[in-house]
């Protein structure tokens, strides 16, 4: 064997041993911290409130509701305990988790698709579209007919807005991402203006105005199992679709030409990714209103810890987003009882400083490098 070959083999075996990447943590470490935090946050969110509950009572109610009849002694469970755990707090915590996971996943996808770490889920007109649907329901009074009228209307208008934006940005079968972004911003501004117009010419009562403003600030008050069952299928399907596209998302980060040269059918892939992220965003906004900063900060933070490869980034961001929103909602309803702070206010108050912190850390690292 030549000396050069020997040297090459030695170099290879040395580098093989050192697979650690500076600044990143291993997924095992990440999950062994995050999973317990997620579970504890969930339990705490069910336990803490105007009426505090023992964790054993929570466990008993959950066991009674999920296990076959007769397995749990129901004698000590009062109707009030049952209502608080099963009908009020648990669905609220679940909706928080679903919304957090949905927005974080959508954020990862949009940032990958636009090759820009500052992209966020509602960029393609989806957010303003969802708002318009909700406002229409408020001003027409359809909301009174069914608890699902509002979320269904806002998912429908969100997807409709995306369709319009995509149609405008597409010429001859190709959709340049910059055009999509610009069309999304313009259509978004237009839809927001229509929402404002509807509010300003139709509001008759102060209460209706407050309801709309509150909805636009995001919130999870009085969420029921209906909201869970409405949002869960969309977010679940969206998340699985995202996971199936994780290699495509990786390749898209190298640019469309490189992605195409490595086997990606770029235009169909973009359509699939945009629609998936719109479904995730639409379903989240529909049940929680506008909850900002989750789709921006969470993917960013997780990417710093685990790296940009989507197979690990997507599930980790979904779990982090779920935990983040559960905790923010817990803060929102316990800081100043019995009144609630709006969820969107808390996520922005926590998210924005966090984002600045990450930004400053990055700038400092770049100075040192």
């Amino acid at each position: 064997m030549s000396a050069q070959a020997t040297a090459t083999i030695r170099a290879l075996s040395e580098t093989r041993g050192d697979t650690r990447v500076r600044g990143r943590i291993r997924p095992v470490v990440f999950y062994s911290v995050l999973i317990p935090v997620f579970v504890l946050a969930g339990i705490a969110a069910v336990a803490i409130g105007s009426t505090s509950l023992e964790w054993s009572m929570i466990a008993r109610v959950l066991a009674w509701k999920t296990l076959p009849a007769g397995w749990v002694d129901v004698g000590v469970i009062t109707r009030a305990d049952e209502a608080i755990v099963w009908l009020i707090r648990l669905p609220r915590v679940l909706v928080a988790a679903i919304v957090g996971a949905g927005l974080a996943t959508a954020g990862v996808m949009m940032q990958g698709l636009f090759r820009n770490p500052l992209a966020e889920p509602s960029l393609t007109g989806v957010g303003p579209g969802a708002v318009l649907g909700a406002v229409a329901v408020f001003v027409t009074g359809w909301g009174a007919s069914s608890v699902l009228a509002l979320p269904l209307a806002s998912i429908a208008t969100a997807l409709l807005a995306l369709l319009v934006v995509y149609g405008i940005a597409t010429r001859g079968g190709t959709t340049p991402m910059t055009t999509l972004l610009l069309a999304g911003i313009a259509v978004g501004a237009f839809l927001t203006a229509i929402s404002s117009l509807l509010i300003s010419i139709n509001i008759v009562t102060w209460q209706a105005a407050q309801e709309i403003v509150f909805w636009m600030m995001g919130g999870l008050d009085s969420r029921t199992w209906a909201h869970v069952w409405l949002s869960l299928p969309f977010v679940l399907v969206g998340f699985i679709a995202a996971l199936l596209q994780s290699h495509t998302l990786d390749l898209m980060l190298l640019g469309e030409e490189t992605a195409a040269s490595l086997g990606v059918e770029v235009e169909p892939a973009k359509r699939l990714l945009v629609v998936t992220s719109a479904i995730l965003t639409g379903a989240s906004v529909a049940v929680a209103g506008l909850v900002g900063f989750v789709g921006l900060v969470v993917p960013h933070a997780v990417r710093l810890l685990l790296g940009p490869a989507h197979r690990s980034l997507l599930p980790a961001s979904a779990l982090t987003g779920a935990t983040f929103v559960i905790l923010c909602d817990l803060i929102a309803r316990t800081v100043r009882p019995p009144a609630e702070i709006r969820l969107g206010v808390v996520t922005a108050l926590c998210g924005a400083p966090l984002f600045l912190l990450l930004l400053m850390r990055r700038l400092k690292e770049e100075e040192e490098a």
Partner: protein
Amino acid sequence: MSGALQGAHLTVVRGRRTILDDATLAVPSGAVTAILGPNGSGKSTLLRVLGGLWRPTSGEVTLNGRPLSTVARSEVARHVAFLPQDTRCDFAFTVEEIVAMGRLPHRGRFAPAGVRDHDVIDEAIASCDLESLRTRTVDRLSGGERQRVAIARCLASEPTVLLLDEPTAHLDLEHALTVFALCRSLAAAGKAVVMATHDLAGASRVVTNAVLLREGRIVVVGPPLEVLTPARCREVFAVETEVLVTTDGRPAFVFSSPGASERSASSLGVHE
């Protein structure tokens, strides 16, 4: 005419502009082909059309005799690698992760990378002199280092045809020569290597085949000595050319702007 990749009467029209005009050429296996021409002559367009990234307005590209438009993108990806001009990536993938993406055309959607994948990745990293940068993230690399990573990513696909758009741009002299040498050895191993380049002097020492483009039309195809004649270089690039023969017997081209010799002579106070 023979070759792994052939283009027949390729024309690309964008709006009212004809970017590529009736280009017919064969990309021979076992040779390095340089696509030469001034800015805007259609070099990148020709590469993109040959790689199937752009569909020609008219004309057809065939890969091993099959029309490219009938071959699935994933299958084209296993045969043809493409190095774009812009290899910038703001996301913190490691060098190894980027090179590993070159294996994706050969892997199923959920198949983990196998032993062979790792071997090919190692080999690609070694041949581009990247071992020491393996776990570094690409957003912190210099332009030249990034270029080598992108070339290694192309090699990891084990393509039969490599289409390289300005592979030596951003590279210092040492690494530019390494890339040229790499191209030669890939050609010697039977691959078809095509590079669009502005480095006429450097490329002409490596390539066996040159294609000269001007305003979207192929002017001439042939060995560098026959393609880069002083008359053609004056016509296409508006430069004067002098051909020298170096000690290894290969031609070396020296270019100068027209009238430069008189200007420099007069500025030195020399009069004929």
